[in-house]
């Protein structure tokens, strides 16, 4: 069924190229993520939990 496709030759290299690029970068990024400093991790993962205060909207600000 798929042999009917007229595409031949060099375009066929893209799936394996995709794999090579993907796995190279994946391994590198995975290693980087695992080796992240614990202090950085603690700091980053707590960023959303930092306290904030609220201020009433001043008269100049219309709603």
């Amino acid at each position, binding site marked *: 069924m798929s042999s009917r496709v007229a595409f031949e030759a060099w375009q066929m290299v893209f799936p394996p*190229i995709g794999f090579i*690029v993907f796995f190279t*970068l994946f391994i590198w990024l995975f290693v980087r993520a695992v080796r992240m400093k614990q202090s950085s991790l603690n700091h980053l993962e707590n960023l*959303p939990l930092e306290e904030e205060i609220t201020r009433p*909207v001043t008269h100049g600000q219309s709603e």
Partner: protein
Amino acid sequence: MSGQKVTIEFNDRIVRMFLIASIFWGAVGMLAGVFIAAQLNFHILNFDMPWLTFGRLRPLHTNASIFAFVGNMMFAGIYHSTQRLTKARLASDFLSNLHFWGWQLIIVAAAITLPLGFSRGKEYAELIWPINIAVALIWVVFAINFFWTLARRNEKSLYVAIWFYIATIITVAMLYIVNHLSIPTGLLHSYPIFGGVQDALVQWWYGHNAVAFFLTTPILGIMYYYLPKAVERPVYSYRLSVVHFWLLVFIYIWAGPHHLLHTALPDWLQSLGMLFSLMLWAPSWGGMLNGLLTLRGAWDKLRTEPEVKFFVAGVTFYGMATFEGPLLSIKSVNALSHYTDWTIGHVHGGSLGWNAFMAAGLFYWLAPRLWNTKLYSKAAANMHFWLGLFGILLYVASMWVSGPTQGLMLSATAENGTILKYPNFVETLTAIRPMMLTRVLGGALFLTGWFMLAWNIFMTIRSGRAVNGAMEVYQEAPAPAMGLKRTFIDAPFLYSAGIVVFGCAWAFGSDWVSVLSLILLVVVSISAFVHLQVSGASWGEWYEQLLENSLPFTLLVTIAVFVGGVVQIVPLVTVEQDQVVEDRIQIPYTPLELVGRDIYIREGCYNCHSQQIRPFVAEVMRYGDYSRLGESIYDHPYQWGSKRTGPDLARVGGKYNHAWHVRHLENPRSTSEGSNMPAYPWLLTDKAGIDDLPAKIRVQRILGVPYPEMSDEEIYAQYRQQAEKIAGELQGMDIYVEPDREIIALIAYLQGLGKKWEPYAPAAAQAAEKTEVVP
């Protein structure tokens, strides 16, 4: 802590505006969805009015749901969380307001033009070119405002949610601009620069990644910020969130061709799309688990906090939809599921379960904080949750039954595969009617829940008073910028590039190139390993610095998504035409047929009819010979379609006579009993617009469609001659229609489908034939 202590007051007014807009447009989009689902059951709801027909309203539903509802929700979440994560007020109030009002204006323009039939004829990319330009401009305003805020931030590190936002902004801009490249033929009409298979590929590269980078990555950023906020504990694994991000960015962009499996798209691209779709299972489930496990020790909040319910269900639906997506991308599964309701069920599992539930969780969490009050009614929010959940389940389950049922019936054969078991398409439609009705019920329940949210948020706003968040921060001297040189001229980056280049050259090079590359690959790999052991600390430093520098980070993300797009699109765009057309090449449409085709696009026929016959026994028996690439190579835009609510039309030309088409378009039930197609009586009375016909043909010529040189008079003469011929033939069948009516042009187009081609021998094949030696 060094630096000067200051209090930053955030611009939460813009967040409130986007929140309210999202709730409103969400109701509009969902209402349109329930209405068009009802139209599929009760054709009378089309009211025989042009601007209320399914083909025109379905794009309104999809565009309103994606760009108006989720768009506004995304902007609310991004603006709110980014200010807190960067500890900086949005860079410009003016740009924020311009972004908001510009986006609303675009939505209003879309809501007017789509029902009026102004369409580019490509799914989720229907908006006409002036609106496209406005979208691009407003997106740039958003990008400037966002990156300017990052540049002014008081927190060095970029939290992972910001990464997802950066990927969204960059990728959506790239996708949107490429897929909307068009040449105008007038103020409200244009033809896309890509045609046929190229257009199909670009469209689904865009369409798939609109799901990825408009409906997924920004919402993941929102998940990584608001879920920890809601359960008051950090994300389960920050490391996993990093891996989740990079994998999604690398993989998602490659998966678009899975929307075109078993079509005339080259096989290598189909394989590429399927393989990368399967790989998506890993990051998607990693992200889902990371979200769910963030609730460790806080599962009790599910009982007490409605927003946590929505977040948890939303993340679970994300997992389910991202399991189902790759499943549907497996070619053998896709052979059954494609063109059926199964895909519709999959899409709504994601849009209702993931997007709308995450939006609800976000709004229930945000509203009390933005108006300094309590949520008006937790009971109503809980009720909304259960109504919505039940609605989704009804919707998705009915589509899961409907899709495979119709798919199996359409492919069923009898008499040892010599005849179709269900030759009449309407039979298969009748079989799924109960499921189509169940879908309406599910959608209506979900919509009811959304109205409850709107009421609940409105009452919450009434009970409170608008407040802006503020934070005390220490403003420090800016850290030294990383710079482009430092970004790219660095050991980790260079080693990675070397491994990729030499690996490819080894695998695909010939003779000495392959041997040399293998040697270099080994040398580079060993060097990288040794270098890492000796200088591991400095490698880490490079990465840590990257996390604090938004510009180099953005560039790397851009490269990642750009490579994925280029690798798919450039070969098809640059390849010699005779290599892709197979054995047939399209004959350009006559002027009358071109006008008819534009009417076909205006009425949104592609929403229900495909023009792509797959190479399956049952399809060939039902619709005719399978479609070749060359047969649609000059179609700007392509019209392969993605759903068959009605039969495929690729070879409908000559199947019925002109009179049948007139009766069918005037009242589909008169020729196809049980059909749910809308009636198009106005096509018999409205005159076809042909003032811009010469301009349209000139643009087609610019795009490479081989029209001969024709004066305006010659174009109109050809038009009249063919129109009068068709009108005359109709007269012979006792049907009297003026030649200048729209239906004449549409019939000319439909009767040409499947017949507008001539045999074609590629140049290479011709040369081979000439040199062939007979043994």
